[in-house]
Structures are given as structure tokens and as C-alpha cells.
């Protein structure tokens, strides 16, 4: 990682560290809940940013992967296998800690999959599905790619909405908490708010560092070159279809992880998380962040989701994201945060400072 990125990551680290302090000073600790959720949504967006901004491939089905992560864990942790208890297989799985025994709110015994295991499953499912879908879909370009990914997203949405085990229109609720460490469990309990915020921040930083490393690596260069011209990259010996597939899968895993944690944090998931509108949101956030700008995506990902979750946009929630899409694409297709713009600003400031110094020197003489 170069100096610039190191600086930015440490700034972000500091901000995350200080946020709970600021919110408690301002007596708005309840903001932390929405901030935590926004961070999980932002993780989905930065994964998509790799695909859209750096590899130049649009995906209108990112919400599908989010819900794959969320529903995987929701189904497996709310399933009750207590009636099979005693059979050899179940006993073995219990010994291996794959299954855990607990009591539900009615004080009945429940036997379900450990979230550690479902976390693994969430990632594996996302990988498998993105692999299977990605191979044919990524052969398409432009409109066809957009429609195909959107079609995939709608299929997942309809399946979620129409399948009984996935809770149909009601979704799945009462997802148990995910105890990671003795003092840290992922759930929506108010007493754990700060720990949860820190944990989300930690996951975000981890994901961000991984992506920044990737962008600046040999593979990242190949991806950026792919965005410039697929033909030229191919002629330079870059297996473009392989890299497109890998980035697609990477984005899917990021989305799935976001979905996994948010489901545990919220204690449930509903079919709207898989809807087309959610996918459009992720695309809007990447677009407004500047496509190939992971920091812009991050900032707007947290900001817009936070405002939306706080209900600032009211009933215009979806309309705001639609308007953002149109306006950004018409007036600033490179996004609002332009590195060139910032660079120019810095240069100008330096010139002004130098002029002032010269003047002061003259006057001193």
C-alpha cells in the first residue's frame, strides 16, 4: 500500500474510532445503529465498485448476492433440528460444533447451525452461484449484460418471495445472535451498539485494505487495463474473461458478507433486500462515488444509506436514488469526487501559499 492510501486508511480508522465518542457527546447514540447498517451496505457497494469501476462491467443484480448471504444464514440458523437429536449424524455435527443447542424465547430447546458455519456457507454459496452465473453472463456486453444481471436479480427475488422455506413475503425473523467473542455478539441489542459499530468498522477496514491491495497489484493493473480496452488487454496476454469472472465473484462475496452480518444485526431479512431497487441503489452509490473511486463509493455508500435509513428522504426514498443516477450520469459521469479536481485544488493552494511567502519575504527585506 502506498503512502497516500495508508494515510487515508488511518484517517478512516481514526474516524471509526472516534465516532461513538462524538455520538455520545452529542447524545445521539442511536445514530450508531443506522451507521452500523450503512457500513454493511457500503461493503456491498465497494465490492461492486471493483466490478463496475475497475473492471468496467455493470451488474444490476448485486442485491441478489446480498440476499444469498442473508438468507443462507437466516434459514440455517432458524431451522430447528431438535427432533433429529440423538441420531449419529446430528451427534457428530454437535460434537464438531457445527450445530448448537440453545433455548428460544418460549424456553424450548432449539438445535440449529452455528453462525460460524453459516458464515462459511454464505461465502461458498456466493462463490458457487456467482461462478455458475458469471461464466455465461460475463460474455455479454453493455445492455445485454445489464439486462442479464437484472434478470438474474429478479429471479432470485421471485424465488425468495415465492418459496415457503424462505418465508415468502414475510421474510425470516428471529435470527439468533452471532457470538464472535465472549464480549462481542452481532445483534441489534442496544447494549452492544458500540461494540457492533466497531466490529462493522473493522470488517469494512479489512475489506477496504484487501481491495486497495488488489487495485495496486498486478491483477489490479490488469483489471484497469481491461476497463480501458478489452481488446488491448487481451493482446497483452491478459486472460480477460478469467479476470472478469474473478472480480464478479469477489463482488458477490463482499455482498454476501454484507448480507450475512446485516441479517444477524437486524435479526432477520425480508425479500425487499433482494429487489431490483436495492441493486439499483448499489449501482447509484458506485456511480455517484465516481465509478473507479473506492473512497468515493465508501463515503457516499455510508452517507446515502445513513440518510435513507434515518428517513430523511421520506417517501421519496427511491426517487432520490433515481434522481441521483440521472443527475450524476448527465452532469458528472466521473462521479462527484474527482481526483483531478482535488489535485488541482491542492496545486492551487500551494501556489497561493508560495506567493504569500514570497510577499512576506519581500516585505521582510
Amino acid at each position, binding site marked *: 500500500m502506498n503512502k497516500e492510501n495508508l494515510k487515508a486508511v488511518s484517517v478512516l480508522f481514526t474516524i471509526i474510532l472516534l465516532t461513538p465518542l462524538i455520538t455520545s457527546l452529542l447524545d445521539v447514540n442511536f445514530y450508531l445503529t443506522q451507521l452500523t447498517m450503512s457500513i454493511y451496505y457500503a461493503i456491498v457497494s465497494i465490492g461492486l465498485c471493483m466490478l463496475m469501476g475497475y473492471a468496467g462491467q455493470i451488474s*444490476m443484480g448485486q442485491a441478489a448476492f446480498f440476499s444469498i448471504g442473508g438468507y443462507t444464514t437466516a434459514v440455517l440458523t432458524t431451522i430447528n433440528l431438535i427432533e433429529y437429536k440423538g441420531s449419529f449424524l446430528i451427534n457428530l455435527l454437535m460434537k464438531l460444533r457445527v450445530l448448537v443447542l440453545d433455548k428460544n424465547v418460549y424456553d424450548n430447546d432449539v438445535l440449529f447451525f452455528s453462525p460460524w458455519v453459516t458464515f462459511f456457507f454464505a461465502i461458498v454459496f456466493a462463490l458457487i452461484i456467482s461462478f455458475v452465473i458469471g461464466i455465461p453472463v460475463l460474455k455479454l*456486453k453493455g445492455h445485454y449484460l445489464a*439486462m*442479464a444481471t437484472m434478470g438474474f436479480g429478479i429471479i432470485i427475488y421471485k424465488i425468495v418471495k415465492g418459496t415457503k422455506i424462505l418465508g415468502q413475503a414475510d421474510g425470516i425473523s428471529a435470527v439468533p445472535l452471532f457470538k464472535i467473542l465472549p464480549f462481542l455478539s452481532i445483534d441489534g441489542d442496544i447494549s452492544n451498539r458500540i461494540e457492533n459499530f466497531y466490529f462493522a468498522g473493522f470488517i469494512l477496514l479489512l475489506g477496504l485494505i484487501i481491495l486497495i491491495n488488489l487495485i495496486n497489484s498486478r491483477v489490479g493493473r490488469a483489471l484497469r487495463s481491461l476497463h480501458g480496452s478489452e481488446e488491448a488487454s487481451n493482446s497483452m496476454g491478459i486472460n480477460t474473461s478469467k479476470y472478469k469472472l474473478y472480480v464478479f465473484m469477489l463482488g458477490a462475496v463482499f455482498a454476501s458478507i454484507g448480507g450475512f452480518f446485516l441479517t444477524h444485526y437486524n435479526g432477520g431479512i425480508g425479500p425487499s433486500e433482494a429487489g431490483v431497487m436495492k441493486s439499483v441503489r448499489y449501482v447509484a452509490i458506485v456511480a455517484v462515488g465516481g465509478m473507479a473511486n473506492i473512497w468515493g463509493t465508501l463515503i457516499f455508500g455510508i452517507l446515502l444509506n445513513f440518510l435513507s435509513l434515518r428517513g430523511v428522504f421520506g417517501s421519496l426514498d*427511491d*426517487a432520490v436514488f*433515481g434522481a*441521483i443516477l440521472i443527475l450524476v450520469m448527465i452532469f458528472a459521469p466521473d462521479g462527484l469526487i474527482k481526483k483531478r479536481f482535488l489535485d488541482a485544488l491542492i496545486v492551487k493552494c500551494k501556489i497561493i501559499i508560495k506567493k504569500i511567502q514570497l510577499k512576506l519575504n519581500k516585505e521582510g527585506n
Partner: protein
Amino acid sequence: MNLNIILQYVFSGITVGSIYAVIAIGFNIIYNTTGIINFAQGEFVMLGGMIAFSFCKVMPLYLAIILAVIITGIIGSLLELIFIRHLKKPSVLQMIVITIGLSIILREIALHVWDEQVRALPFFTGNETSSVNILGANISPQVLWVIGITSLIVIGLTLFFKYTIIGQAMRACSENRNAAGLCGINTKAMVNISFILSAGIGALAGCVVSPLTQTTYDMGTDLAIKGFTVAILGGLGNSSAAVAAGIILGLIEAFSVSIFPSAFQDVITIGILLTILFIRPQGIFRSKQFAALKEF
């Protein structure tokens, strides 16, 4: 399954199929003059139904429909004028994102103007219970209206593109926009007309089908994806093939109800879309070479 039920399925398949065909033709008209896939195509259908519904309370139905078509046409024209015209060399990604944004905005406006209620225009002749007997099957007269009007749309458009100056100019644009411009054709106006046309026919389709399938503010996305499926099935830009493809898809959907639960009906359509995209992106009626010549 006895013959009567089969006929019922066939007619309902042809009905929805011809609506899909009209939406697909709407896609094609804009695609041919601009190279854009207008993701807001389904919203035109919704707007047509909604606007006609509001007007038909104060005026005769046919007048309300005419007004709805005109207003939706104007909306289509405005969208092009405001959001698309002044873009210089927009990338495909940019166009996709903009038209998706437009579809969201139209849908949200509809939500605020007409709320979430399901609405329907009255039946053009008779009512829900009236039926016509064709070959032993009882069919709603509205089905005949849908089939009749969509056929008229298709025939009218064919004549328009073949025999009117504007239609010919639009075809010239679709062959080669630069060359058409150099020949003195006002390509910008042609793009605008293509938006008006596809918005107008979308709205008309939305009106005739409203009594049967009802109109809701969020019906656009599903219709758009089905219309797109049909457009792809027939080969993008090929309108006469779209009619055949529309009816094929309509029939598949109608018969699939008897095999799969209706909740998964759309999954089948989109499954078809994906399959076609993967194995024959040039459509089922066209040679591969043709698709290679058209850029997208």
C-alpha cells in the same frame, strides 16, 4: 386438458403475448434510431393505463385513451429532450444508468400521483362477465380488443416505416446515423419522434390491457424485462419477428401456469431470456453474421 381449456390458454397467451410484442417494438424503435435500450419502456405502459383511468371519469373512454396516448407521447418526447439529447458521446453504461433512473422517477411520480392502489379501465364492450364464444371457448371481448388493437399498431407502424417520409428517414437513421445526417435528415428530430412513437404505442397497449390485467404503479419493471425478452427472442431491432416472439412467450407463460406455481411464472420468462442471451444473442430468427454487423 380438454380442448376448451387449451383454447382458453391459447387466447390468454396471445393476449399477453401481443402486449409484450408491442413493448418489444417500442424497445426496437428507440434502439434502431439511437442504439439505446430504454429501460423505462415498461413505465410508458403503466402511464398509459393510469392517465386514461384518471380521464375516463370525466369523459368518454375513447377520448380518455386518445388523451392518454398523446400525453404519454409528450412525456416520452420530453424525456428525450431533457435527459438524452444534449449528451455528447454517451457511453453505453451511462445510457443504461440514465434510463434506469428515468424508470424509477416515472414510477415514483406515478406512486405519488395515483398511490399504490390497483386500478383498471372499464371493459371496452360489455363487462367482466360477458363473453364471446369462439370455437367453443368462452373469451372475454376485451381479448379481441387487445388482439385487434395490437394488430392495428403493428400494421400501422409497418405502413408508417414503409411509406411515409418520416418513417423512411427513421429507417435511414437506423441503417447509418451519420450518413442519414449527411443526407440532410434531421437525426435529432428522428430520435425524438422515436421516443414519441414508442411512448405512444406503449400507452395504447397499457390502455387496452388494463381491464384484463389491471394497472399498478410498479408494473413497469416486469413488463420491461418481458418486452426485452421478446425483443431479444426476435432479434433486437427486428419488429416483425418481435410479434412472433411475443406470442411464443405469451403462450409459454400461459401454459406454464398449468405446470408451475404462478409465483414462479416470471422465473420461467427470465430463464428464457437468460438462455437466449447465452446461446443466441442475435435472436432465434436471425443468422449470427447479422448480429456481428450491428454494433452494440
